[in-house]
């Protein structure tokens, strides 16, 4: 793996405190005027009378990290972004907990929300991550992303 390819994976749920720390870490970067964050949260979807209680995430981690690195490089080339951070859960995340966190920062707001949306969409489409939805009766189904 290339030295500058970062590990996006976090064991279990992403804590709101981690998000606060990530935000606070940008206070020294006084060229930044705006941040946009996307957070994915596990929904208690109902399927045929059963309710999702958690998602168990697995991945081909090395490729997922590589793919996210490339998505970041392309976004930096396309948008005037100062900072970009991507985190995704691995393992079990309960309903209501956070499993995905994408964070972009720039001097100005223009295009920032659009850039965030594109990056989130690309990660969902291109990163080899797999979600297994666990129901309240311990049965499961494999999550499918709709675009």
């Amino acid at each position, binding site marked *: 793996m290339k030295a500058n390819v970062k590990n996006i994976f976090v064991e279990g749920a992403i804590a709101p405190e981690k998000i606060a720390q990530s935000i606070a870490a940008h206070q020294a970067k006084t060229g930044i005027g705006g941040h946009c964050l996307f957070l*994915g949260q596990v929904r208690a979807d109902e399927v045929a009378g059963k309710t999702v209680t958690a998602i168990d*995430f*697995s*991945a*081909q981690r*090395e*490729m*997922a990290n*590589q*793919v996210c690195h490339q998505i970041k490089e392309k976004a930096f080339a396309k948008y005037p972004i100062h900072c970009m951070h991507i985190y*995704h859960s691995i393992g079990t995340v309960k309903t209501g907990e956070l*499993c*995905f966190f994408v964070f972009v920062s720039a001097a100005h707001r223009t295009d920032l929300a659009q850039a965030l949306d594109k990056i*989130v969409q690309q*990660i*969902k*489409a*291109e*990163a*080899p*991550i*797999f*979600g*297994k939805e666990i129901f309240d009766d311990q049965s499961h189904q*494999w*999550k*499918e*992303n709709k675009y």
Partner: protein
Amino acid sequence: MTQRTLTYYGKLAELTGKSKEEITTEAHTVGALKDRLIDRYPALKKVSFKLAQGQAIADDKDLLTDTNIDVFPPFSGG
């Protein structure tokens, strides 16, 4: 005949009943290996799957260049 290590992910580990296996095959292209896998696991005929080598998704017409091949169901991160 070349020996390759296949790694199955997510739903495909469930369908094939294994997460990793070594197979020896005459397939030279990604498409040929996919056909070979469908012969081996008929359940794969009904699902969408992709192969990756060298940390990148491979097209059916690509030559197999790596001994380690990842077998992926549709991605569902996020």
